[in-house]
């Protein structure tokens, strides 16, 4: 499996994605006008895709990261265990991302 490069790629994506996080926080601290710009962006198709992609990158990197922590502790090196961990990270990352967005749209708070 070539998942370790995906771990790196999602890490690099999250790195530059922090610019969105900063923009959100600075806008919230600046006032309603600045925040309206953020909401206009996150409400657009591109914005929604980026937000969804960012969520997946975060969750996948976390799941894949747990796999690396397991290896750091000296477990999970048998071929079957490696395969299992990798598939769990891959499926878990996609599954949790979709679940989070369903929850966000269903019961996400605010207004």
């Amino acid at each position, binding site marked *: 499996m070539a998942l370790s490069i995906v771990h790196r790629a999602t890490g690099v994506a*999250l*790195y530059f994605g922090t*610019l969105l996080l900063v923009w959100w926080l600075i806008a919230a601290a600046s006032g309603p006008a600045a925040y309206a710009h953020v909401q206009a962006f996150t409400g657009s198709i591109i914005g929604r895709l980026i937000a969804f992609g960012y969520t997946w990158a975060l969750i996948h990197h976390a799941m894949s990261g*747990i796999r690396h*922590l397991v290896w750091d502790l000296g477990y999970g090196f048998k071929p079957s265990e490696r395969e299992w961990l990798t598939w769990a990270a891959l499926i878990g990352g996609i599954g949790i991302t979709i679940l*989070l967005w369903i929850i966000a749209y269903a019961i996400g*708070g*605010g*207004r």
Partner: protein
Amino acid sequence: MSGSNSPKSVRTPLGRVRGLGSSHSGTSDFWRQRLTAVAMLLLMIPVIFIVMSVFRSNQAGVAQVLGSPIVAIVMLLFIVASIWHMKIGMQVVIEDYVHDEKIKLISIIGNNFFSAAVALASIYAILKLSSGV
């Protein structure tokens, strides 16, 4: 590893005892990368909960939530852990793929500047929301 008195080793006894190697910082980045990873795994659930709770809020609603003490502290912890983690991670990526010494040096400086700026801007925003000015 060669023995402590191996004639082939050029390391001094003091250097061997300190165990920091040529980077002078030993395995501290390796350790901090794991430490911040575990911190973020613990903080991720409350952070996701916070972000979801303001999913559709307007600016006043977001400012109120992010400015409340517990939320602000959780967000600050997550920001410090994540930016420390990503700074180390990006340095590893640069050192693995950038082999030209000048470009590598510029990239590492840029990584430090970017991480510091993102960290300070985020922390400033949270503190401003907390103080309500």
